[in-house]
């Protein structure tokens, strides 16, 4: 680097540190800015940061090398990211990655020689319904196929970049109520509402183009005064996106393209008639349904938390207030005592939605009781939704951020907290933007900050961005990360409610838990608790993904059976395949086999069958999913994400992964299977934090329910699902082959030869067993053994 560059770099870093006032807790934020500016973290920049912030160089280096968002080597001009989440994995994201590697001629984590592309993998982007997902420079591309990879990357090579469209204090309860009325008139009463889904999932299907076209079209008709156009958060039915919902009747259009917009405006908005071809068609009956509520996917749900997502603009606090928002806050502030709030939450039976299912009221009570040396207490919102396959927290933050903020303020009143943090993962840029914007709006309206709604209570919230580490979702690691340290856990024999963030009493709940709080205060504990089972009250949001017809977010009452979710809401398994298992609880959970499909879904039932609720990922697997491969997938994920602090998790998981890999390659023995189980028990027993303690669950549950599949891999060297490449071979049935040559055209290793309209043949020596020929053959002439 030349002299002038060095000066610029030094100036840039100095300016950054100054703008963040040199606060240690802003270390990650500062590193993010440097990474963004230079595409990597230059050594000199880190040294300057260390000197200017007076943070030891070893700490800066530790943070810079711990998180995957940071790089110490320069990156390419375009960043290509492939999602390796569970849902994408079962839809063959590995094949997509292979194809990208072939096209760019680099491996994962590498940069092309001309510095034009860097290729990375990420453990779930939360756009699971549209998997497999590839992201280029922040733009999502869903439903990837090998052919699409080439087409899209070629565009970037030619630099045809895709465009991205960026999307007074209230002093008393009376003022809030008056404001609510005014907002209601301005935004809802007598207006036609046109809601275009702008959640991450629909954006991956280009919903922003639809939104823009709608804006232009409405203006062209001079309808701006009568129509309120909203770019809303996620509606849940991501698979059918882009979604558009219109008017009081909730006319529901799916798979809308910008070309359809003119017709929608002239027919539906102006004349109130539905556009038949865009309506949802019930696959069972073939009938078209008009309103959102009639769609079977929605009919069986109870969307008390997610529902508002589809009807309000997350960037307009007026929408939230008009629909009764912040009424619970007013009630908590002026009509209830802190102890009474906790009592209400206790009676409602609210349990933590982040995974453990710990009763929220118990945590709140402990934090309220705990003594703080200077009176400072914290409430935190865990939005580090790292479970691959789960994305409900992202949707809530993106689509209804004020409900989370309102919940946190109420929690702060109950606990006596003075400051809050929302810890959001860096892989969710839209969520970061939405919650940050909502916090600013709430502050401007006097709903957050000093003397809220004219009361003596003051409370503020900051956003803290994660930097790519699954383990940072663990409570003590999360707190370390907010403090600007490496996000690794510590022992918590002394609870964080007593000694948490900055050694102060701290209460941590996840996004969905906080979003439930205003509902409990508004409706009362009794009504809230009328939904659910004995031990689990209310609803739970699941992301229903994988091998299932209707993918997306579903909110269901606790106690519903897995069968109802999978078959009645999810529409069953596509392509006539057989259901095999459903994975819940992410990397900490387990696989539940078909024999248990009628169990009611709640915290305790799932735990009893060897899985857990987790944050709510529900990944459906069919006959083509290999359960050993699933175990291998989760172990690789966990090895990647283990912080490496304690021996059993760091070393134990590595050896577990080695053994399972040998099983998938047919090289393992039955003795090794026993060793695997023995090791799994010790890892569970002795690991320091929740990550390690639950890490063996995917292995133990698949061994428990699918022991036969393990045995087949070991003894018969056979993978019945045809997934484990070392154990399958492909051949072409000469009598069935009509010589269309689709397979040979697609084969990436030129292993298929033969003349046109003559039977083709596979050269076993060249075959990489990618399975593309098997997928493209319409004659079913390719056989997999």
């Amino acid at each position, binding site marked *: 680097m030349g002299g002038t560059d060095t000066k610029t770099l030094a100036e840039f870093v100095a300016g950054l540190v100054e703008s963040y006032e040199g606060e240690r807790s802003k270390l990650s934020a500062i590193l993010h800015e440097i990474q963004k500016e230079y595409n990597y973290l230059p050594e000199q920049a880190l040294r300057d940061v260390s000197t200017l912030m007076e943070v030891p160089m*070893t700490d800066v280096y530790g943070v810079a090398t711990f998180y995957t968002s940071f790089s110490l080597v320069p990156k390419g001009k375009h960043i290509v990211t492939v999602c390796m989440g569970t849902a994408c994995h079962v839809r063959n994201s590995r094949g997509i990655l292979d194809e990208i590697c072939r096209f760019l001629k680099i491996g994962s984590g590498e940069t092309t020689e001309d510095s034009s592309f860097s290729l990375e993998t990420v453990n779930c982007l939360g756009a699971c319904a549209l998997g497999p997902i590839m992201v280029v420079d922040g733009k999502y591309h869903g439903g990837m196929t090998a052919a699409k990879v080439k087409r899209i990357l070629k565009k970037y090579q030619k630099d045809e970049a895709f465009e991205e469209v960026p999307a007074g204090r209230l002093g008393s309860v009376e003022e809030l109520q008056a404001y609510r009325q005014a907002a209601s008139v301005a935004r809802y009463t007598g207006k036609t509402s046109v809601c275009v889904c702008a959640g991450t999932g629909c954006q991956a299907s280009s919903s922003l183009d639809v939104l823009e076209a709608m804006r232009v079209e409405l203006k062209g008709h001079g309808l701006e005064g009568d129509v309120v156009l909203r770019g809303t958060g996620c509606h849940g039915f991501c698979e059918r996106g882009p979604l558009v919902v219109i008017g009081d009747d909730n006319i529901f259009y799916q798979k809308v393209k910008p070309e359809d917009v003119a017709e929608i405006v002239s027919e539906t908005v102006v004349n109130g008639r539905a556009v038949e071809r865009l309506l949802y068609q019930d696959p069972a009956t073939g009938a078209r349904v008009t309103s959102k509520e009639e769609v079977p996917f929605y009919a069986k749900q109870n969307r008390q938390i997610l529902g508002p997502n589809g009807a309000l603009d997350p960037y307009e606090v007026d929408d939230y207030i008009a629909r009764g928002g912040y009424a619970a806050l007013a009630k908590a502030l002026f009509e209830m005592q802190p102890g009474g709030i906790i009592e209400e939450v206790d009676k409602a039976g609210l349990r933590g939605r982040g995974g453990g299912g710990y009763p929220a009221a118990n945590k709140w009570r402990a934090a309220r009781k705990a003594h703080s040396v200077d009176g400072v207490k914290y409430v935190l919102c865990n939005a580090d939704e790292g479970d691959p396959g789960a994305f409900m927290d992202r949707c809530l933050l993106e689509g209804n951020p004020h409900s989370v903020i309102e919940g946190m303020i109420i929690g702060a009143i109950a606990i006596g907290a003075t400051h809050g943090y929302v810890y959001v993962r860096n892989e969710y840029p839209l969520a970061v933007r939405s919650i940050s914007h909502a916090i600013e709006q709430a502050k401007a309206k006097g709903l957050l900050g000093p003397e809220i709604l004219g009361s003596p209570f003051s409370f503020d919230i900051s956003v803290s961005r994660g930097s790519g580490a699954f383990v940072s979702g663990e409570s003590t690691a999360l707190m370390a990360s907010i403090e600007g340290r490496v996000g690794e856990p510590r022992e918590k024999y002394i609870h964080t409610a007593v000694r948490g963030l900055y050694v102060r009493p701290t209460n941590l709940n996840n996004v969905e838990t906080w979003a439930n709080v205003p509902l409990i205060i508004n409706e009362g504990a009794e009504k809230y608790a009328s939904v659910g089972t004995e031990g689990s009250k209310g609803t739970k949001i699941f992301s229903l993904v994988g091998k299932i017809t209707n993918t997306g977010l579903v909110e269901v009452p606790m106690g519903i059976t897995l069968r109802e979710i999978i078959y009645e809401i999810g529409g069953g398994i596509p392509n006539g395949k057989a259901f095999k298992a459903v994975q819940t609880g992410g990397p900490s959970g387990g696989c539940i086999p078909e024999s248990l499909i009628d169990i009611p879904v709640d915290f305790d039932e799932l735990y009893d069958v060897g899985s857990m609720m987790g944050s709510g990922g529900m990944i459906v697997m069919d006959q083509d999913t290999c359960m050993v491969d699933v175990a291998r997938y989760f172990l690789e994920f966990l090895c990647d994400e283990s912080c490496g*602090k304690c021996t059993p998790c760091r*070393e134990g998981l590595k050896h577990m992964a080695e053994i399972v890999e040998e099983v998938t390659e047919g090289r393992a023995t039955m003795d090794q299977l026993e060793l695997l189980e023995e090791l799994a028990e010790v890892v569970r027993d002795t690991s320091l934090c929740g990550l390690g303690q639950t890490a063996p669950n995917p292995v133990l549950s698949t061994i428990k329910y699918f022991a036969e599949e393990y045995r087949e891999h070991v003894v018969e060297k056979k993978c019945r699902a045809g997934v484990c490449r070392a154990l399958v071979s492909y051949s072409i049935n000469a009598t069935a082959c009509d010589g269309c040559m689709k397979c040979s055209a697609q084969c990436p290793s030129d292993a298929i030869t033969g003349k046109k309209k003559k039977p083709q043949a596979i050269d076993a020596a060249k075959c990489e067993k990618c399975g593309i020929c098997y997928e493209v053959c319409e004659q079913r002439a390719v056989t997999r053994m």
Partner: protein
Amino acid sequence: MNVLIDGQNVAVEEGWTVLEAARYYGIDIPTLCYMDGLTPYSGCRLCVVEIVRGKRSRLVASCSCPVEDGMEITTKSERVLHARRMIVELMLATTPNSRTLQCLASELGVTKVRFKGEDRRCILCGLCVRICDEQMTGGAIGFARRGVEREVSMPFHKTPEACRECGACLYVCPVCELPCMGVMEPGELCNACLDTVQLDPFPSRD
């Protein structure tokens, strides 16, 4: 307050850890990442003991778990010993020549390493990092990266000015001592201290 430790009812002081209580009464619990005068780290997990509460019991790291009145502690149950054996076995797979580890293996009766070996010469106990930072006010070395790639490192692998070459890190390291002379190949166990397996402590290297 009182605790029940290996069946004996003993008086302990509030604020003690389980390890401190055990050592006070002469009960030996093996440790690798613990050292008097340094902040407990709870990383090696060798010091686990079993805490019984009613019908349920769990393993905790004794070096950081504070004693509670009426606590029921077992330091040598089969569950504890099995866990310790497995942990030593895991460590030996990455650090075969550590004399400390080889001796621990003999004491605990580990006679076989069943995992793929790879000599990394570090068990990441973090003693060096903590002694440098907490006792020598050096802060010259720290942890970098994560998971199996975690390493003790100087930033950018360059010796920083903060290092005074005091040697404290080497002094506390359980691995970079005189290696165990009984072991020739990674994955091999010495076990010379066990009666069952007698190896020549100084075999000729031909």
